[in-house]
C-alpha cells in the first residue's frame, strides 16, 4: 500500500533515518543517469542481435526503452519516492519528525528541490515546471511558424519539422493539462476548502516528481530521430518511426501514472477533507472544475497508458496489436487514443473555466449567477465527454453507421457548455466591473471560447468534417479552446493567485501589456489559420501550396506578437516575484477561504480549522 497515511499516530517505530534528508533532485538526476547508462550498456551487450528473419527489428528499441526505464527507476529511487512504501513494508512508519521534515518545516529554499509533501511547495514546483514546459513548447511553436513563413518550407528539413510538430503538440498538451490543477489545484485548492494539506501528501509529491522524471525521455527523442507522428502518435505510423517514439511512449506512461495519482489524491481531498459546514452547495465552483477535471482523467488516462504500452510492445517485443501484417488494427489505436483524447480536452478546459467562474463574482462584486447551473454544466460536460470520442474518427471509415450517434452526443455537449456561458454572462450582467487582468480574461474567454465552440459545431457535423477534418481549421479550432480559453484562464489564475502564492502583486502594467499582445496576436494568428484551413491546407505540413501563403504569413506574424507578449509576461512574473509590490492578505477582497489565511501561508495553513456557514459568493447579498 503506497498510500499509507503518514500523519497517523503510529509512534514507536521511528528509527532516525538520515537517508531521507540526503535525497534531493541532484541525487535523483545522478542516480537516474547512472542507472540509464548501466541499463544501456548491459542491454546493448546482453540482448541478442536481430536476425534477418524477423519482420520487425527490436533490439534498438529494447535498449532505448530499458535505458529509459533505468532512468525512471534511478530517478524515483534517488528522489526518495520508494522510502515510504518500503518503510511501510518493514512496519517502520515515518515518525512525526520525519513527516515534518518531508513537509518542509524548515521553510528553506532547499525544500523546493526535495521530495517535499507540503501542498504549497508542490504548487510552486508545478508552477515553475509548467512555465518551463510552455517555454519549450513555445520555442518549438515559433520554429514551426517561422518555417511556415514561406510555402516551400525548407528552413527546417521535413524530418526535424515533423519531430518539432510532434513534441510541440504533446508537450503543450501535458503543459495545459497540469497548468491549473498543478499549480493552483495544489497550492490554492486545499486552503480554499479549509484543509491543512492534501489527503495524501506523499502522493502529491510523487505526482510532481513523476512529471520531472517524464521530461528527459521526451526531450531525448530529439536526439533519437524525433517523433514523426504528431502528438496523436497514430499507429501504425508510430511503429514505423525511429527510436524517438520510445521517448514519447515513456513520457506518456510516466505522465499517465502522475495524472492517476494526482486524480485520486485531489478527489479524495475534496470529498473527505472539506471544512466543517462546507456542504456541496457552499463549495466554490473552482473546486468543482478541478475535481471534475481530475475525476475525468482518472478513468481516461489508463486507457492512454495502455495504448502506449501496446505501442512499446509492438516496437520492442514484436507483438502485433497495431501491425496489420500480424492482425493488428490502426482503428484499435484510434479508439483507445480518443477514449482518452476527448475527455482530456475537458480535463484541460474545466479547471480553466472553473477558475474564471471563481473570479467572476470577485471582480463584478455580485453573486455567481446560478451556481446550480454551473455545477450542472460541469457535470454534464464530464458525463458526455466520455461518449463523444469517435467524432475524431468520422473520416477514418471504422464504422460509418456510428457517425450518426456520435454526431448526436457531440452536439449534445454544446448544451452543458452553453450553461457555462450563461453563468458567466449572467454574472457580468449589471455587475460593477473591476477592470483587472482576470476580469479582462473573462471577456477574452467569452470571445475565444465562443469562436472555439462554434467552429466545434461545424466539426461535429459529419458532412462539414468531410471538408475540414485534418486541415488547419481543426488546428485553429483546438488552439482556440485550449489556448484561447484554457491558457487565458491559467494566466488569469496566475495573476489572481500570485499575491497569495508569492506575497507580491503581479506587475499591473506589464501584465496588461502582455494580455493585450497575447490576445491580439492570438486572434490574428489563428483567424489566419482558420482561413487557410477552410481553403484546404492540411495540418502538419512542412510545405504547402503557394495559394495559402498569405494566410500563413498572417499566422506567423501573429505568432511573433504572442511570443513577445509571453516573454513580457515571463519577465513580469520573475520580476514581480522578486521585487514586486508587497500584497496584503486579501488584495482582491474576495470571500473564499484561501484569502483568510496570512501571506505567506503558514506550514499547516490554518491555526484553527474554519467552519463554513455560507457560500463564498455573498457579494451584494449581505445588504438585502
Amino acid at each position, binding site marked *: *500500500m503506497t*498510500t*499509507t*497515511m503518514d*500523519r*497517523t*499516530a*503510529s509512534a514507536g*517505530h521511528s528509527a532516525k533515518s538520515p537517508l531521507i534528508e540526503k535525497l534531493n533532485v541532484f541525487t535523483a538526476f545522478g542516480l537516474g543517469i547512472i542507472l540509464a547508462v548501466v541499463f544501456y550498456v548491459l542491454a546493448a551487450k546482453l540482448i541478442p542481435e536481430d536476425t534477418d*528473419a*524477423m519482420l520487425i527489428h527490436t533490439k534498438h528499441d529494447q535498449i532505448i526503452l530499458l535505458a529509459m526505464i533505468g532512468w525512471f527507476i534511478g530517478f524515483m529511487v534517488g528522489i526518495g519516492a520508494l522510502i515510504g*512504501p518500503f518503510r*511501510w*513494508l*518493514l*512496519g517502520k512508519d515515518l515518525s512525526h519528525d520525519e513527516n515534518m521534515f518531508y513537509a518542509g518545516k524548515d521553510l528553506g529554499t532547499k525544500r523546493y528541490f526535495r521530495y517535499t509533501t507540503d501542498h504549497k511547495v508542490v504548487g510552486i514546483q508545478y508552477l515553475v515546471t509548467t512555465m518551463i514546459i510552455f517555454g519549450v513548447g513555445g520555442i518549438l511553436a515559433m520554429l514551426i511558424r517561422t518555417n511556415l513563413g514561406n510555402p516551400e518550407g525548407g528552413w527546417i528539413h521535413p524530418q526535424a519539422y515533423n519531430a518539432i510538430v510532434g513534441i510541440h503538440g504533446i508537450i503543450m498538451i501535458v503543459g495545459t493539462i497540469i497548468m491549473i490543477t498543478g499549480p493552483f489545484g495544489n497550492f490554492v485548492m486545499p486552503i480554499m476548502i479549509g484543509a*491543512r*494539506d492534501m*489527503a*495524501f501528501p506523499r*502522493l502529491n509529491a510523487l505526482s510532481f516528481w513523476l512529471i520531472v522524471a517524464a521530461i528527459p525521455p521526451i526531450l531525448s527523442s530529439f536526439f533519437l530521430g524525433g517523433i514523426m507522428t504528431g502528438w496523436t502518435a497514430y499507429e501504425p505510423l508510430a511503429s514505423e518511426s525511429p527510436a524517438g517514439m520510445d521517448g514519447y511512449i515513456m513520457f506518456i506512461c510516466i505522465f499517465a501514472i502522475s495524472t*492517476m495519482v494526482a*486524480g*485520486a489524491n485531489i*478527489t*479524495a481531498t475534496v*470529498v*473527505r*477533507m472539506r471544512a*466543517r459546514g462546507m456542504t456541496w452547495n457552499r463549495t466554490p465552483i473552482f473546486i468543482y472544475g478541478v475535481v471534475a477535471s481530475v475525476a475525468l482523467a*482518472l*478513468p*481516461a*488516462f*489508463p486507457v492512454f497508458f*495502455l*495504448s502506449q504500452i*501496446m505501442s512499446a*510492445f509492438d516496437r520492442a517485443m*514484436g*507483438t*502485433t*496489436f497495431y501491425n*496489420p*501484417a*500480424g*492482425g*493488428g*488494427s490502426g*482503428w*484499435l489505436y484510434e*479508439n*483507445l487514443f480518443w*477514449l482518452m483524447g476527448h475527455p482530456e480536452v475537458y480535463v484541460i478546459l474545466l479547471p480553466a473555466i472553473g477558475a474564471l467562474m471563481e473570479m467572476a463574482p470577485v471582480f463584478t462584486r455580485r453573486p455567481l449567477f446560478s451556481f446550480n447551473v454551473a455545477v450542472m454544466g460541469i457535470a454534464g460536460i464530464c458525463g458526455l465527454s466520455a461518449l463523444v470520442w469517435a467524432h475524431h474518427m468520422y473520416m477514418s471509415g471504422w464504422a460509418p453507421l456510428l457517425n450518426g450517434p456520435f454526431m448526436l452526443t457531440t452536439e449534445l455537449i454544446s448544451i452543458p457548455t452553453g450553461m457555462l456561458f450563461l453563468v458567466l454572462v449572467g454574472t457580468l450582467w449589471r455587475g460593477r466591473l473591476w477592470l483587472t487582468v482576470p476580469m479582462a480574461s473573462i471577456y477574452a474567454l467569452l470571445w475565444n471560447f465562443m469562436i472555439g465552440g462554434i467552429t466545434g459545431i461545424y466539426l461535429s457535423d459529419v458532412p462539414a468534417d468531410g471538408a475540414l477534418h485534418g486541415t488547419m481549421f481543426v488546428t485553429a479550432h483546438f488552439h482556440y479552446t485550449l489556448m484561447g480559453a484554457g491558457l487565458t484562464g491559467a494566466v488569469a489564475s496566475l495573476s489572481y493567485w500570485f499575491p497569495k502564492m508569492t506575497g507580491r502583486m503581479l506587475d499591473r502594467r506589464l501584465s496588461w501589456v502582455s494580455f493585450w499582445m497575447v490576445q491580439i496576436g492570438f486572434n490574428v494568428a489563428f483567424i489566419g489559420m482558420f482561413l487557410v484551413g477552410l481553403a484546404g491546407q492540411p495540418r502538419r505540413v512542412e510545405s504547402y501550396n503557394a495559394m495559402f501563403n498569405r494566410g500563413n504569413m498572417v499566422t506567423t506574424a501573429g505568432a511573433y506578437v504572442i511570443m513577445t507578449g509571453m516573454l513580457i509576461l515571463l519577465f513580469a512574473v520573475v520580476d514581480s516575484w522578486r521585487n514586486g509590490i508587497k500584497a496584503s492578505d486579501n488584495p482582491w477582497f474576495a470571500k473564499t477561504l484561501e484569502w*483568510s489565511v496570512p501571506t505567506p501561508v503558514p506550514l499547516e495553513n*490554518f491555526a*484553527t*480549522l*474554519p*467552519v463554513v456557514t455560507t457560500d463564498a459568493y455573498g457579494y451584494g447579498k449581505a445588504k438585502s
Partner: protein
Amino acid sequence: MSQETTHAHHEHPDVVGSRNRLGVILIIVADVAMALSILFVYFYLKGQNVNNMWLPTATEEVPATVPVSSMGAFYIAIISAFGMLLNGYALKGAKAKNQSQLTLGAMIAFAMSVIGLVYQIQQMNSAPFTMRMGAYASCYYLIAGLNALHLALTAFISLGNWNRARLGLYKTDHWHVAIIQVWWIWMTVSAALGAFALSFT
C-alpha cells in the same frame, strides 16, 4: 466564521481509514479502466481479424497459432480468490483482536500471491506460441502480463501486511487490512475477467 475544531495531528483512525479507503478505490477505478480496455483490445482484434491474422494459419517457417485453454487463467483467478478469502480471515482476526488468526491469514494470503505469480510466469513461459505470432498471441500475453503485474503488486502489499501483522501494528486499528481486502477483491475480479475473455478464442 471560524472556530477551533480538530487538530490535524490527532485525527481519529476511522477518519484516516475512510480517506485512505477512498484513495485506494479511486486508484482501483483507474486500474479498472485499464483492465476493461484490455478486454476491449482482445474482443476488438478478435472481431476485426485483420488479414486473417487473429489466429494465423501455418506457413513454411511458423506453425499455426493454437490457442491455449483458458483453464490456466481460471486457476489464477481461483488462487486469487483463496488469497482474498484468507485476507478476509485475517481481517476478521484483526477485528476480533485475535493476533494469531490475523498473522496466519496474512501469511497464507502472501503465500497465495507468490504461488499465483510463479504459476502465471510458468504459464507464460510454457505457452505454445510467442507474442510475435499474431493478434491472439499478443493479446494472450497482454492479459497474462496484467495478471503478473497485479500479482507482483499483491505480493508486495500482502508481504507488508503480513509483516505488519506480525509486528503487532494492527492492534489499535485495522483499516490497512480492510483496504487490502478491497484490493484483493479487485485482483480476483480482474483475473476472472481475463480468464473469461480468454475462454473466447
